[in-house]
């Protein structure tokens, strides 16, 4: 289990980098990190269950202007990592579902609680920027590169630390979750479709933008797809 745990911590750091400081290619999005962690832990169903719900919610969370949105990069890794860690403890279907529910809740909580951390990080960057400008004025051309890499290292370390903290917390609560797993699994049975519907509605609102013809496209696709899926089933 040490290998997947270390992989999860590394994924947390790399996701924190991709989210804003480096490249921004969507590698940090929950579905992508869930796929990678599912591969590392050898558990696709749990990774898929948590990854799809967190991804649907993350898609309607946008970094516009100076707004600091929920950090689903760290949230995605923490949530999926916690679910996989708990699911690995007991190989039963109800435990996997309980782990998925706890992982999804941890993912959303971690995404929300990481916002003040990111704000703190950005305030530290202000200090770096002031130091950099003063150094440049003093003739130190390399200050710019040093400031950039210092900020990258800080973001990576915070991502690793946050994921580590959530994994440790989940590990300490694993006995209680295992004990209540049957009832928690029952809640997952209803909450998963509820969250999926909730996220789909947010995205639908973003795409339709009060245009009737787009709502019509959605309705037509829903009916047609339902007929094809149901009629085409063996």
């Amino acid at each position: 289990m040490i290998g997947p745990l270390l992989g999860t911590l590394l994924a947390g750091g790399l996701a924190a980098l991709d989210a804003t400081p480096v490249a921004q290619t969507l590698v940090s999005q929950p579905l992508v990190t869930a796929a990678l962690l599912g591969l590392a832990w050898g558990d696709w169903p749990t990774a898929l269950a948590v990854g799809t719900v967190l991804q649907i919610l993350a898609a309607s969370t946008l970094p516009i202007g100076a707004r600091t949105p929920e950090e689903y990069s760290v949230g995605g890794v923490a949530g999926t990592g916690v679910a996989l860690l708990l699911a690995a403890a007991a190989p039963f279907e109800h435990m996997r579902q309980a782990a998925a529910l706890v992982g999804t809740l941890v993912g959303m909580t971690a995404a929300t609680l990481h916002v003040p951390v990111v704000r703190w990080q950005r305030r530290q960057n202000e200090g770096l920027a002031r130091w950099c400008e003063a150094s440049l004025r003093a003739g130190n051309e390399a200050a710019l590169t040093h400031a950039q890499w210092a900020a990258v290292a800080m973001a990576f370390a915070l991502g690793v630390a946050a994921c580590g903290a959530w994994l440790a917390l989940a590990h300490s609560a694993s006995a209680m979750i295992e004990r209540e797993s049957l009832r928690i699994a029952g809640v997952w049975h209803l909450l998963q479709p509820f969250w999926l519907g909730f996220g789909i509605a947010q995205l639908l609102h973003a795409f339709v933008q009060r245009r009737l013809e787009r709502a019509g496209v959605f309705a037509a696709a829903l009916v047609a797809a339902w007929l094809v899926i149901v009629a085409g089933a063996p």
Partner: protein
Amino acid sequence: MSRLRRATLFRIGLRANLLQATWNFERQQGLGWAFALAPALRALYPDRAERVDRLAEHTAYFNTQPTLASIALGAAARLEEERSQGLGGDAEGMARLKSVLGSTLAAVGDRLFWFTLRPFAAVLGVLLAMVNREPLMGAAAMWAMYAIPHLVLRFTGVGWGYREGPGILSGAFRVRLERAMRWIAVVGCALLGILLAWALAPAGEPRAIEVQSALAGGLGLGLLTAQRARPSPTRWALALGILALGLVLLRRGA
């Protein structure tokens, strides 16, 4: 004659990947902007004191959508080139260029990348993951759908901005972008319809009535809460999740 070589423009594109590394509330992307532009300044200003002076000037406030920032970087490199050759351009002109391009590119880029392409890629990824019952293909499709245009624009945008200058956003290019955004949103609506149909009856097997009701309940509440920007969808989803879990766990003795 042009003094900036292709390799220099490529290095600017490469460094644009760190545009937001030192993002802060004061200068926002200012430091990253100067870091990305440094290869051009190194090529244009052999005198160290002058180069450092220019670098410090570029650390001032700048913010835009990070993918399309490459276009602004290219246009700024062109203006710096003219400035270094004494063909016009000064600090005030550079500040004006950054301000105009920053806001214009943000207006186009935020809508294209954040409001349209990213949600579209997510819907495609989730749909493929649910249909395949494993997340790998969905994750790959989602990543490719967003990252390929993002990285292509990041690297080619510098040369584009360098050749065309600030005029790049006028006329046909903007019209094409608007049309692309409209079509992506329409296809996104269709994909959401398919996703919902699959969630109701995965692989043709309709799910239990209580599951379909929960999906419909989420959809209804989602449409209601989407009318307001605050609190965020995550807080709604989290609060309802904790409430449901809490109620079930509190009924322990019942």
